[in-house]
């Protein structure tokens, strides 16, 4: 169907290990007694809780609202009672806790009111976007970017190609594969909604050649519904990381996302098939995003497979369901072995971006040996899909020469792990890059902060100077007034009282004027101190003298 494919630089072919989890169809995970639902399962601002402890919630009821534009709402995955809103460990490489809504399930699966719109074709763009935003859809591919935001690109760019990323290049993971095999209809209908929203002419579904069944299922649906003209199915060669957004765009279109930019800059939007299915369910069935397909695999599981899992389900329950052999377990990964996060705590929950849990044995994913010296063999540069020079970046990160690392395009690193995979010296290259990126970000943050502190310090200093100057001015005024008084008392004893009073009033007026002028002057120029030179203007007021 599609005529030409491009290639990206580098790439590796790690063992796929995908067949273990594709032997059985998708099943539904058992309902856990307690769900731990993080407020932040996406990129952007954490959602804001709408419920309180003790509240009864229904399945699909919004329990946290999006906080700002780049944020995603969270819904109750089933009916039950909120028992706590507290910190709990969440899936994050740091292992740090974050705010979560914890609810006990009641087992009734009682739905909140749904508003299906099967005739979505009549809807306005904004109405469709509202439905998607209210359904709490974040990208299910891994990054978790709010779908409604992505589908509403700025007016300055025109999107001409929609790319659906079904490459799933990472070893072990088969969630998208199984979804495409079993729910092709949902995915394609979701894609149709996205096409309507964006008004694009072309849609390309990129799938790696190792998923023939998924390709067949999608092809069948496209043929049955005469959609093959509008939606092209493209089989791409198996190579990691062809499923990286930038790499897939290059393979399918030959275009490159500019450094620091987003695909929309070159007229492309990229979505995951799971996200499309979620959009279909949100619009046509009126169901918010409350569950997803998760691959459970690894040699420590006796019955691996793909499960439909409610968000907030603890990983430990899924492991138990798949018959974890505890004595064999060596490493627990969320995501695949190339980019996944190692989990310390199996009690943490499945979130919107979780596509896979790997429970591996020691033989399966052996710990890499101790770090040896870099011999500059250049294998990392050969496999880098971003065409970087990883070993140069490594030297710079190691010696903390971050400016040089930036010069060598550190920020274009996608952290795919290909360099670490091939490194004969077992250097944890990706960790060096993550460290360097983190440090650069922290330094930038520090710099903005110190700039802010400086401004506050200078403002304070200006204020103090002004106060001191005012005090000085008042002091001289007082001294002058005293001198005048003394002179009038000693010089003219026969003067009438009125003259003395007039002098006092005049002096007071002058003081008031001076103060006012001083304030005006400092308002214009905070540094101005010389209040004595401001000319008091006579003014007919009867203000009493202050002092």
């Amino acid at each position, binding site marked *: 169907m599609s005529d030409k494919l491009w290639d990206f630089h580098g790439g590796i072919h790690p063992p796929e290990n995908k067949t273990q989890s594709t032997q059985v169809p998708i099943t539904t995970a058992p309902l856990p007694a307690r769900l731990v639902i993080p407020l932040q399962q996406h990129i952007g601002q954490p959602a804001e809780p709408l419920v309180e402890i003790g509240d009864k919630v229904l399945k699909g009821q919004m329990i946290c609202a999006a906080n700002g534009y780049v944020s995603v709402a969270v819904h109750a995955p089933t009916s039950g009672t909120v028992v706590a809103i507290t910190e709990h460990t969440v899936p994050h490489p*740091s292992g740090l806790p974050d705010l979560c809504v914890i609810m006990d399930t009641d087992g009734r699966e009682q739905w909140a009111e749904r508003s299906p719109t099967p005739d979505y074709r009549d809807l306005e763009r904004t109405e469709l976007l509202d439905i998607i935003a209210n359904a709490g859809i974040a990208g299910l591919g891994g990054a978790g970017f709010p779908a409604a935001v992505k589908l509403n690109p700025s007016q300055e760019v025109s999107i001409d190609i929609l790319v659906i990323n079904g490459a799933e290049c990472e070893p072990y993971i088969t969630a998208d594969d199984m979804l495409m095999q079993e729910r092709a209809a949902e995915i394609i209908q979701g894609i149709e909604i996205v096409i309507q929203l964006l008004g694009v002419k072309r849609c390309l579904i990129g799938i790696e050649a190792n998923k023939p069944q998924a390709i067949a299922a999608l092809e069948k649906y496209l043929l049955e519904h005469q959609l093959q003209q509008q939606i092209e199915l493209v089989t791409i060669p198996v190579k990691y990381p062809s499923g990286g957004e930038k790499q897939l765009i290059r393979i399918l279109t030959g275009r490159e996302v500019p450094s620091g930019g987003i695909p929309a800059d070159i007229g492309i939007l990229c979505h995951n098939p799971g996200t499309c299915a979620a959009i279909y369910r949100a619009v046509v069935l009126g169901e918010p995003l409350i569950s997803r397909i998760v691959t459970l695999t690894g040699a420590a599981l006796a019955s691996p497979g793909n499960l439909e899992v409610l968000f907030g389900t603890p990983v430990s329950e899924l492991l138990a369901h798949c018959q974890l052999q505890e004595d064999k377990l060596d490493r627990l990964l969320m995501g695949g072995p190339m980019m996944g996060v190692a989990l310390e705590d199996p009690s943490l929950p499945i979130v919107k971006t979780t596509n896979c849990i790997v429970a591996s044995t020691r033989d399966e994913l052996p710990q890499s040996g101790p770090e040896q010296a870099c011999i500059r063999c250049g294998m990392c540069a050969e496999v880098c899909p971003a065409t970087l020079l990883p070993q140069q970046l490594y030297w710079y990160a190691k010696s903390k020469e971050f400016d040089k690392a930036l010069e060598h395009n550190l920020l274009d690193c996608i952290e795919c792990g290909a360099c670490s995979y091939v490194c004969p010296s077992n250097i944890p290259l990706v960790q060096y890059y993550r460290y360097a990126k983190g440090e650069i970000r922290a330094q930038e943050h520090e710099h903005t902060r110190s700039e802010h502190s400086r401004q506050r310090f200078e403002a304070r200093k200006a204020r103090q100077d002004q106060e001191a100057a005012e005090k000085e001015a008042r002091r001289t005024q007082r001294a002058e007034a005293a001198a005048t008084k003394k002179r009038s008392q000693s010089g003219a004893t026969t003067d009438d009282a009125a003259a003395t009073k007039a002098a006092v009033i005049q002096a007071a007026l002058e003081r008031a004027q001076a103060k006012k002028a001083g304030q005006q002057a400092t308002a214009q120029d905070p540094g101005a101190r010389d209040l004595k030179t401001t000319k008091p203007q006579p003014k007919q007021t009867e203000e009493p003298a202050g002092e």
Partner: protein
Amino acid sequence: MVAMSILPAILILLGLALVFGVILGFSAVRFKVDEDPIVEQIDDILPQTQCGQCGFPGCRPYAQSIANGEAINKCPPGGETTIHALADLLGKEFIPLDAEHGEEKAKTVAVIREQECIGCTKCIQACPVDAILGAAKLMHTVIADECTGCDLCVEPCPVDCIDMIPVQVGLSEWHWDKPSPTRLDRSALIATDATPEGQVA
């Protein structure tokens, strides 16, 4: 005769000198590079805590004296990073932090134990960045986002109700550490070239 033959040469040279002088003068004015004065650049590197640990009343005065030849290792809040940056900027050698002025500590933020505060406003006057809010006889509090962790409010407090709490690393600020050679387990302990810095082999 000799003078006659020399004259044109002198004239030509003078003419050339004049022309080039004009060109140089013009380009000096026309293509003037506006560079930050060195004090500005130094001040930009300093952490702006305004803590005075360097012995100067604030970062700016210290920047001024660095420009006049003061040592670059007197800023504990900036620590090694700042010394490195200053050394780079000024073309000087890196020197370790002068322990006399304090040690490099984790970032802290001041917190007032509010029930103990007597509302004396002394800390408000001490704070170099106006990060403490309150009025006489009323409880004070620290605006944590504005606090630079300079410690200057701790000393003046007559009831010692101000604590310097280390800043908690949140999920958004967290990042991976530099890999250590002992990253996996102690049994695989090896000492690679990543031994503590300064211990040059």
